């Protein structure tokens, strides 16, 4: 299948090496390129051995939170009498993120194999891939791959001639960012509004249909076959301590060669932008980078000389998040960016809890007011304070996701907000020049 962007020679292709092969989505291509080898290996070792490989790999969740995957898998009570389920989060809707789409489009069998290994590790017999509604064409690709896997004995009963059985289905979403949040996703899977659940219990204990559920992002599951093939330690060594392996980074915005590229964790951020991305477009200077989707606080150009791994980015005050890296050049209007981000969160707030529902609504109104040229100096302070007051006070992390980038933008680019206010002839006196 056609690639949307040219690959870069600087990539380390571990989970994307089949992208661009002829008929890469077909089981024949998959089998000809190491396909289902990891499953055969997993069938020979114990569930604990699988989980230990994952722990050794230092794989961390690629959906946003970066939770250690091996540890998550070990939380599922294998001995429970309830059925265990696998749920794949393919809701991909964090602004800036467009990698899970490629993983399904180019290599659906890799995801199926990852699910099968997860099922072996936790004792699951059924699973669902929850795909956002807009990705309708991926449902067809995935359904076709699932049908091929059944036909070839990789799904259904007696998988690979053993007594292992597993059924896998696609499930469509219907347009809601909040349904990417794991507990809201489970509500949605059960046919309800995507309102999150209180935790604990976490999905590992009580997830889909109130049963123990292993829920991971598409890329997380897709990384599992490579880990079993090469061994957990070898995979970990590709990255840096505490951030194992590679990940797909989605580069967008003001760069010459935007695209999705696979790099080891710890890859230098500026090298990524300048050498893989071909640098900032139009010969302009870099202003800021949003490193991990719109929820992650932006980094000013001078803060960007860091490696891309979970800990380094956290130390710089942001998050590696979903891998949605947005580059902004010197002409970018930060008030407009803050407003657009808040319009998104206000639209997507599920409305369940007041700090988020009201907070995002008021923040949007205030940012709109500043952007329209009617802002006052006190609005700038109020925007910062209100966002700060949402932090940690909402029912699910969407509230934080809305507040964090806002706090960062107001703090780092306060001067731009002040310039908007200064242009307002009716602004509070302290900023209007008398002359």
């Amino acid at each position, binding site marked *: 299948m056609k690639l949307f962007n040219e690959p870069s020679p600087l990539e380390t292709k571990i989970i994307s090496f089949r992208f661009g092969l002829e008929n890469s989505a077909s089981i024949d291509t998959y089998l000809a390129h190491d396909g289902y080898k990891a499953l055969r290996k997993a069938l020979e070792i114990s569930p604990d051995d699988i989980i230990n490989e994952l722990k050794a790999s230092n794989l961390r969740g690629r959906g946003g939170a970066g939770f250690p995957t091996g540890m998550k898998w070990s939380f599922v009570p294998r001995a429970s009498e309830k059925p265990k389920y696998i749920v794949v989060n393919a809701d991909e809707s964090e602004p800036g993120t467009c990698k899970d789409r490629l993983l399904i489009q180019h290599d659906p069998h890799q995801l199926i194999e990852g699910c099968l290994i997860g099922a072996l590790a936790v004792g699951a017999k059924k699973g669902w891939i929850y795909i956002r*509604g807009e990705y309708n064409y991926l449902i067809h690709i995935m359904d076709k791959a699932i049908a091929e896997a059944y036909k070839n004995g990789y799904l259904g009963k007696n998988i690979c001639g053993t007594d292992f059985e597993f059924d896998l289905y696609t499930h469509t979403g219907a347009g809601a960012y909040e349904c990417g949040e794991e507990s809201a996703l489970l509500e949605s899977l059960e046919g309800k509004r995507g309102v999150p659940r209180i935790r604990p219990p976490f999905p590992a204990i009580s997830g889909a*249909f109130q049963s123990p559920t292993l829920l991971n992002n598409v890329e997380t599951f897709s990384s599992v076959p490579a880990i079993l093939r090469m061994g957990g330690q070898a995979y970990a060594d590709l990255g840096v301590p505490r951030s194992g392996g590679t990940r797909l980074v989605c580069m967008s915005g*003001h760069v010459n060669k935007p695209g999705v590229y696979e790099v080891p964790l710890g890859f230098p951020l500026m090298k990524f932008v300048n050498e893989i991305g071909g640098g900032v477009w139009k010969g302009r200077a870099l202003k800021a980078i949003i490193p991990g989707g719109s929820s992650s606080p932006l980094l000013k150009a001078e803060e960007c000389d860091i490696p891309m791994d979970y800990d380094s980015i956290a130390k710089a005050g942001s998050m590696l998040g979903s891998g949605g890296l947005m580059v902004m050049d010197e002409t970018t209007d930060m008030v407009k960016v803050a407003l657009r981000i808040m319009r998104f969160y206000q639209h997507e707030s599920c409305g369940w809890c007041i700090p988020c529902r009201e907070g995002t609504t008021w923040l949007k109104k205030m940012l709109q007011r500043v952007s329209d040229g009617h802002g006052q100096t006190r609005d700038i302070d109020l925007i910062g304070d209100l966002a700060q007051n949402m932090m940690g006070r909402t029912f699910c992390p969407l509230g934080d996701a809305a507040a964090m980038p806002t706090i960062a933008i107001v703090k780092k680019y306060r001067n731009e907000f002040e310039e908007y206010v200064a242009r307002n002839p009716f602004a509070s006196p302290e900023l209007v020049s008398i002359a």
Partner: protein
Amino acid sequence: MTFSPELEAKFADLVTHYPEGRQRAALIPMLMFGQEEVGSITPEFMEEVAKRLGLNTMQVDEVVGYYSMLHKKGMGKYHVQVCTNVACMLRGGAELYDHACHKLGLGHKEVSADGVISLEEVECMGACSWAPAIQVNYDFHHEVTTEQLDTILEGLKK
């Protein structure tokens, strides 16, 4: 209410995907796939789905109200969705949307008088690295310029 044999087969298959007694889980897929045939989420359609899944219409209605892709009001035969979220905005998504508004004489979620085209400003659609992006129904178009948008829109009128 009757559906095409293909849709009936799809519905029959869907309910087998979920654990016994949990057939409500088929609700959102049924609404999504059914909407393509029915055109929108009509009261009769909601009643029919509710009946089949052992729910009351209110339970279906509250679900429909939550999801942005479930439309009670029919959209055009070609539903043009323009993303203006940050990655697209940085590469001209907002201007592209304005251009579409002027060109079509439509605003957000409005349908042309002949019912052929509707327009919607949408959130990130997962095409950020190939921005600005639009979707016409389920078809993606990447790195769309205003000229290309014109060509795409002209093509829809035929």
